[in-house]
C-alpha cells in the first residue's frame, strides 16, 4: 500500500515536529510514508474566510491521486478535504474535479483514524510518563467524527497519566481567522479553555490539531502557565529508547535537537 503524508501547511511551516513524529510512528508500525514535495495547503483557511480557492483543491487532488491512502496529522484539514473540497469544486462549476475530490477524500485519513481503521492498532507501543489532558478539537469530533480513537491510542501509552479535560466538548475559540475577526469573543473562549486545562494539573495539553494548539498554547505561554502543548503524534512517537524517549520537550527547538540525535543514532 502506497501511503502519502499530507503534513498540512501549518505543520510544514511552523510545527515540523508533529510531521516528524507522524513519520516516526508510522515507520515504527511498518508503514512507510511518502511525502510528495508538490503538496502545499488544503485551502481550508481560505475557504473558511470566504475565498474558495479551487486551484488548491485541484493541487491536492493531483498530488495525491496516485496513492492508496493519505494520512493527515490534523482533524481540521482532513475534514476540510472530506467536506469542503467537493463543495468548492462545485461552486467553481468543476463537477469532474468534485467527483475526483470526493474519491480522494474517501481515502484521506486523520492520523488516529489511519492508525485504528487502516493500520488496525490502537496500541502503538509508546511510552510517555507524564500527566496529559486531551482536547478533542471541534472538527475532529464533529466534522470528521473521529470519536474516541485518539483517546484509545492515548490510553495505551505506557506510563501516561491521562486526565479528563472539564468542558472538553467546548470550542477553544481559535476558528482560523475568527481569532482575528472576533478577537474579544475568541479571547473569552480561550480564557475559559485555559482555565479548564490548568485546573487538570496536566503538564501537557494534547490534541490532534496543531492549529488549535497554537492558539491555546500561545495563550498558555503568554500567562506562563507552564503547560506544554503536544500533537497527538508527538506523544505516540515517544518510546523508552526512541524519539524524545519519554522526555518532555521544553521548547520546539530542543525537540528538534532530540529528534536529530535520535535520527543520527539510527
Amino acid at each position, binding site marked *: 500500500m502506497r501511503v502519502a503524508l499530507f503534513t498540512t501547511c501549518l505543520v510544514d511551516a511552523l510545527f515540523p515536529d508533529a510531521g516528524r513524529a507522524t513519520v516516526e510512528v508510522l515507520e515504527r508500525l511498518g508503514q512507510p510514508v511518502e511525502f510528495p514535495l508538490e503538496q502545499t495547503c488544503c*485551502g481550508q*483557511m481560505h475557504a473558511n474566510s470566504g475565498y474558495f480557492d479551487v486551484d488548491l483543491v485541484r*493541487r491536492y487532488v493531483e498530488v495525491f491521486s496516485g496513492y492508496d491512502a493519505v494520512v493527515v496529522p490534523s482533524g481540521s484539514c482532513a475534514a476540510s478535504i472530506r467536506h469542503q473540497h467537493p*463543495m468548492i469544486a462545485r461552486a467553481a462549476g468543476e463537477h469532474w474535479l468534485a467527483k475526483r475530490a470526493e474519491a480522494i477524500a474517501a481515502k484521506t485519513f486523520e492520523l488516529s483514524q489511519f492508525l485504528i481503521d487502516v493500520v488496525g492498532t490502537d496500541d502503538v507501543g509508546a511510552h510517555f510518563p507524564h500527566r496529559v489532558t486531551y482536547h478533542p478539537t*471541534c472538527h475532529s469530533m464533529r466534522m470528521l467524527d473521529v470519536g474516541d480513537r485518539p483517546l484509545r491510542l492515548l490510553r495505551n501509552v505506557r506510563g501516561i497519566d491521562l486526565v479528563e479535560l472539564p468542558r472538553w466538548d467546548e470550542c477553544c475559540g481559535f476558528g482560523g481567522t475568527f481569532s482575528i475577526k472576533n478577537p474579544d469573543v475568541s479571547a473569552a473562549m*480561550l480564557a475559559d479553555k485555559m482555565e479548564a486545562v490548568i485546573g487538570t494539573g496536566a503538564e501537557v495539553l494534547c490534541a490532534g490539531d496543531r492549529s488549535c494548539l497554537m492558539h491555546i498554547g500561545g495563550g498558555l505561554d*503568554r500567562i506562563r502557565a507552564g503547560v506544554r502543548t503536544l500533537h497527538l503524534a508527538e506523544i505516540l512517537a515517544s518510546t523508552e529508547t526512541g524519539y524524545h524517549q519519554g522526555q518532555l520537550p521544553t521548547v520546539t527547538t530542543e525537540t528538534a535537537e532530540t529528534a536529530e540525535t535520535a535520527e543520527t543514532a539510527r
Partner: protein
Amino acid sequence: MSAGETIWVDNPPFPANARRAVNDAQLRRNIRNATSTIRQRRATMVEELPDWQQLRTAGAAIKDEVLARLDRYLEQFEQAATQRGAHVHWARDADEANSIVGSLVAATGEREVLKVKSMVTQEIGLVGALAKRGISAYETDLAELIVQLGRDRPSHIVVPAIHKNRSEIRKIFLNEMGDAPADLSDDPHALAEAARQHLRRKFFQAKVAISGANFAIAQTGSLLVAESEGNGRMCLTLPETLISVVGIEKLLPTFRDLEVFLQLLPRSSTGERMNPYNSVWTGVTPGDGPQQVHIVLLDNGRTKVLRDHIGRQALRCIRCAACLNVCPVYERTGGHAYGATYPGPIGAVLTPQLVGVEHAATLPFASSLCGYCYEVCPVKIDIPTVLVKLRHDVVKAERASPESVLLTATGAVMKGRRRWTLALRLAPLMRLFRHGGPPPISRWTAVRDLPEPPRQSFRDWWVTRSATSKQADQR
C-alpha cells in the same frame, strides 16, 4: 425586503457589539447560567430517545419535501383553511403584512390587542407598526412582557429575556407595569404572580389577539402554537378575532407529520418531553373560540432564500433555539450582539439571507465553526457549511481589502513548490512579532504568543533525511 423595525444589522457590526457584551460580566453570567441549564436538560431528554437520529432525519426530510413543493402546499393550505372558515391573506414583505394586520384590527374598531409570543411578528416589527396606527399591542408571554415593559429587545428565540436576572425583572415590573404590588419581591413566584394578575385583566377585556404559528398543516388548514405558560392559549381562545402571521416555511404536509415535530421541538427547545400547551385550531368552530379567524402568509425574503441550494436548508428551522444554547459565541455575547430578530447560529445564517449579505456582512463570520449547532439541530441544518457559503458570498460582493490581498498572495505562493519552499524559510522572521506586532498581528498577540518558529521546515528536514539515507544506501 422592507426591513421592518427590528432589523438593525451591522450597525454597529457584530465584533463591536460582541466586544461590549464580552465585557459585561453580569450579562455573561446571566446567559451562561441559563444556557447551560437548558443545554443539560436538552441533552438528558435527547439521550432517552433511541431513535433521535432517525427523528432528525425525518424532520429534515419532511421540511425539504415542503420546501421542494412549497407552491403546491401553500395553495392546499389556503384551500383547506378557507373551507373551514378562515380568511387567508398573502403578504410579500413586512410592510404588506403589517398593513394587512393593521387594517384587520382597525376593522374591528378595537384599539388594544393581545399578542401571543411569536418570532415572525418580531421579524416584521408588528407592534411598532400597529402603534403608528394608534393600536396598542400587549405581549402576553412572560418573557416578552418583561422585554416590552423594559423597552428592550428579545435576546433569545425561546427565552427572550434570558439576559435579565430576577432583580432586574423586579425593577422593570415596579416601574413599568402600573399594577404591580408595591411590596413586590424578586422571588420568581412573586414575579410570576404579578404578571399573572396583570395579564388576567387583559385576557378578559381583549377582543382581538395576534399570534404566529409553530406549524401550519397543508392537509387540514390547521395552525399550531406550542408554549409553556398557557397565556398563548388564553389569547387563542378568548378573543372574538384571531389574526395569525405565518411564515410560508412553517408548513407541514399532513397532520401526521406532527408526530415527528412534537417530539423534536420540545426536547430541543426547552428540554421537555412535550410542550405544556399545544393549541391547534382549524378555521372557525361555530360557537367556540374566535369567530373571526385570519391567517397572513408571509414571504419577506423566504422565496429568495429558497433559490440558494446550500442556503435554503435554513428554512427548515423550527425556532427551537438549541443552536443558541450550545453556541460558545452566543454564550459569551448574548443575542443583542447579532443585531437582528434571529440571534445565534441560526440568525447568522438566516438574517444575511433574508436581508441580503451586504446588510449583514459580519454575521456569517460570527462563528468559530465549531459545529455544535449542527450536532444539536433537530432538522439537521448544516449551519457551518451555510456560514462558509455565506462568507463566500460576502467576499464576492466586496472589493479588494487587506485581507483579500493577503489571502490571494498566500494562495499564489501555495501554488508553486519552489515559491512555497522559499516562503517557509522566512518563518524565523516571525520571531520579531512573537509577543506583539502591528495590526492585524496585534489582534493575535494581545492575549497569545506566536509560536517559536522552527529552524527548519518539515519539507527541508524531509529532503535532508532522504538525501542522508540515500547516501547511506550507496555506501
